[in-house]
C-alpha cells in the first residue's frame, strides 16, 4: 500500500517536470536575439521569405497563444517540423536513433563492468599501489577532453595502424562485424569519462560499506573473504551506484553529441549540431524536447526500479 502511494506520488511529480521541460524548450526559440523569423531566414533573406517563415512557425501570433499551440501540438504527438530536412522532428530523430542507441549500448557495455570492477578493486585494496594506479587512471578519464582523445585515437588506430575506420556508420543489417568495427572506437573514447566517473564513485561507496559493522560482523562469523566482499559489501555498494545510473546515462548522451561529431556518425547528436549550423531551430527545439522527455521517463523508471529493489527505501 505504502509503495503504491509512493509510486503514484512519484508519477504525479513527473507531470509538472514534463510540463516545465516543454515550456523551457518553447522559450528556447524566443531567446534568439532579435526577430526569430529574421534569424532563421538569414540576414539577407527577402521580406517575403521572412514573412513566410513567420506564418509557418506561427511567430506572428501573440506569445501566450504560441505557447498554447505548442503544448497542444505536443499533446497530439506533433513535435514540430524541420525547416531544412522537410521531415517531421519525430521522424528525423527516429531515423537517427539506432546510431546513437548502438553507440550508447556498446559504450555502456564497456563502462559498467570496467568502471564498477575498477572501483571495487580499488576500494578493497585501499591505499595500495593497485588503488593508487586505478585512481590515477580514473582521474585521467574524467580530465582528458573526449574530442581530443578521439582525434589522437583516429591518428593512431585509423591513420597509422589502419585497424579501424576513421568514421562513418555501418548499419547492423549489413553485418554484425562491420557495424561493431564502425562503433568500437567512438564507444571506447566515449566510455573513458564514464569509466573514470563510475570507478571513482564505486570506490568511495565501497569504502563506506567496508567500514560498517556488518562487514566486521560477517568476517568475525568466519565468512569467507570472497563472500564478505562480494555478497555483503559489493551488493550494498551497488545502491548508491544505481542511484547514479541516470547521471551516467545523461553523461553518455551528452558525450555522444561530441563523439558523433568527430567520427561522423549520423546520430542524434550530429542531428542537433547540424540543425544549429543550418539555423533549423524547430529541429533543435524538437530534438532537445524529445531528449528531455526521454530522460524524465528514464529517471522515473530508475526510481521505480530503485523502489522495488531496495527495501529500505520502501519503508523509509
Amino acid at each position, binding site marked *: 500500500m505504502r509503495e503504491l502511494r509512493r509510486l503514484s506520488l512519484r508519477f504525479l511529480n513527473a507531470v509538472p517536470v514534463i510540463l516545465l521541460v516543454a515550456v523551457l524548450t518553447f522559450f528556447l526559440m524566443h531567446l534568439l536575439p532579435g526577430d526569430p523569423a529574421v534569424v532563421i531566414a538569414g540576414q539577407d533573406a527577402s521580406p517575403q521569405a521572412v514573412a513566410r517563415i513567420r506564418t509557418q512557425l506561427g511567430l506572428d501570433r501573440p506569445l501566450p497563444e504560441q505557447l498554447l499551440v505548442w503544448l497542444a501540438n505536443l499533446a497530439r504527438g506533433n513535435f514540430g517540423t524541420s525547416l531544412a530536412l522537410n521531415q517531421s522532428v519525430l521522424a528525423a530523430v527516429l531515423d537517427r536513433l539506432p546510431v546513437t542507441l548502438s553507440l550508447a549500448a556498446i559504450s555502456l557495455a564497456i563502462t559498467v563492468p570496467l568502471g564498477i570492477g575498477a572501483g571495487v578493486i580499488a576500494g578493497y585494496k585501499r591505499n595500495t599501489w593497485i588503488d593508487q594506479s586505478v585512481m590515477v587512471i580514473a582521474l585521467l578519464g574524467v*580530465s582528458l577532453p573526449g574530442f581530443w582523445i578521439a582525434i589522437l585515437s583516429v591518428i593512431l588506430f585509423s591513420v597509422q595502424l589502419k585497424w579501424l575506420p576513421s568514421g562513418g556508420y555501418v548499419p547492423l543489417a549489413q553485418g554484425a562485424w562491420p557495424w561493431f568495427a564502425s562503433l568500437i572506437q567512438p564507444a571506447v573514447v566515449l566510455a573513458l569519462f564514464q569509466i573514470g566517473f563510475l570507478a571513482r564513485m564505486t570506490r568511495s561507496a565501497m569504502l563506506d560499506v567496508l567500514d560498517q559493522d556488518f562487514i566486521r560482523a560477517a568476517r568475525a562469523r568466519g565468512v569467507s573473504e570472497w563472500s564478505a566482499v562480494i555478497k555483503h559489501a559489493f551488493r550494498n555498494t551497488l545502491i548508491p551506484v544505481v542511484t547514479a545510473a541516470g547521471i551516467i546515462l545523461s553523461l553518455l548522451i551528452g558525450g555522444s553529441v561530441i563523439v558523433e561529431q568527430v567520427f561522423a556518425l549520423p546520430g542524434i547528436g550530429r542531428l542537433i549540431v547540424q540543425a544549429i549550423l543550418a539555423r533549423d531551430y524547430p529541429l533543435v527545439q524538437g530534438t*532537445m524536447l524529445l531528449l528531455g522527455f526521454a530522460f524524465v521517463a528514464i529517471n522515473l523508471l530508475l526510481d521505480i526500479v530503485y523502489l522495488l529493489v531496495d527495501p529500505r527505501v520502501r519503508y523509509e
Partner: protein
Amino acid sequence: MSEAAVAGGTRLARRRRFPILRRLLRHGSFRIGLVLVLVLVIAALCAPLITNVDPTAMRIRFRFRPPSQDFLFGTDMFGRSVFARVLYGARLSLWIGLAVALLSGAVGAMIGVLSAQWRRLDGLMMRLMDALAAFPAIVLAIGLGAALGPASGSLIIALTMAYVPRTARVLRASALVIRELDYVEAARVSGAGSLRIVLRHLLPNCMSPLLVQMTFVFAYAILAEAALSFIGIGPPPPAPSWGNIVAEGRDYAVEAWWIMLFPGIAISLAALGMNLLGDGLRDVLDPRMKIET
C-alpha cells in the same frame, strides 16, 4: 620573557590560525592540483610578459613550422604561433571556467538554501531543477548557446544553466540537514527570522560542499567549453580558446599534429588540476561526502 619563548608563542599561534589550510597543503593531490592551477593561471595572466608574439598575427611565410627553438609549439596554417595562441587561449578558457563555477555556485546556493528554508518554494524549485537536469548538460548548453549566439558571454550563461541543478540539489541536501541541528533550532526559538537563519546559519555552514562542488564544476566547465568551441558553439575565431585551436588544427592533425596537441594538453592539465583540487578539498573539508558531482 625570553625572545625564544615569544617566537615559540607566535609559531604556536600561527599553527592554530589556519588548521584547514595546513591540512590541505599536506594533502598530496591538493598540492599537485594547486601547483598545476597556479602555473596555468599565472601563465594566463602574464601572457603578454611571457611572449611578445601577437596570437592573431598571421605570417604566411612561416606556415606549419614544427616545434623548434624559434617556434616553441610550432605554427598553424596561417603561420600564427601556437604557443602564443595556447597562452592567450588560457585567458578565455580559464575565465569561462571561473565565471561558470562562480555563477552556478551563487545561483545554485541561493536556490538550494532558499528551498530548504521555505518549504512552499521547495516543490516548484526542485521541479524546475528536475526539468533543467532532464537535458544532458552538454545538450542544454548547445541549445542555449546556439540560441544566444556564439560569444563567450552566452557560453557562460548556457553552462551556468546546465550546472545549476546539481549545485542546487547538493546545497539543498546539506541545508536540510543543518536546519534540523540544535543550534539552528535554538536560533529559531529565540526569535531569529527566516532570512537571518539563512544568512547566518545555513549559508555559512554549507560552504564546504559548495566549495567542493564549485571546484568540480570548474573542471567540467573547462572540458565543456572546449567541447562546445570544438563543434563551433563558443567564442568565435580568431580569438583563441583552447577548444577552437583544437578544432582548427583538426584537419591538419596528421601532418601538423602540434597545432591540436598542445591546446589539448593544456585543457587536460587544467581539468586535472581542478579535479585534484576538488578531491583534496572534499577529503579535508567533508570526508563523508560522495563524489556525486
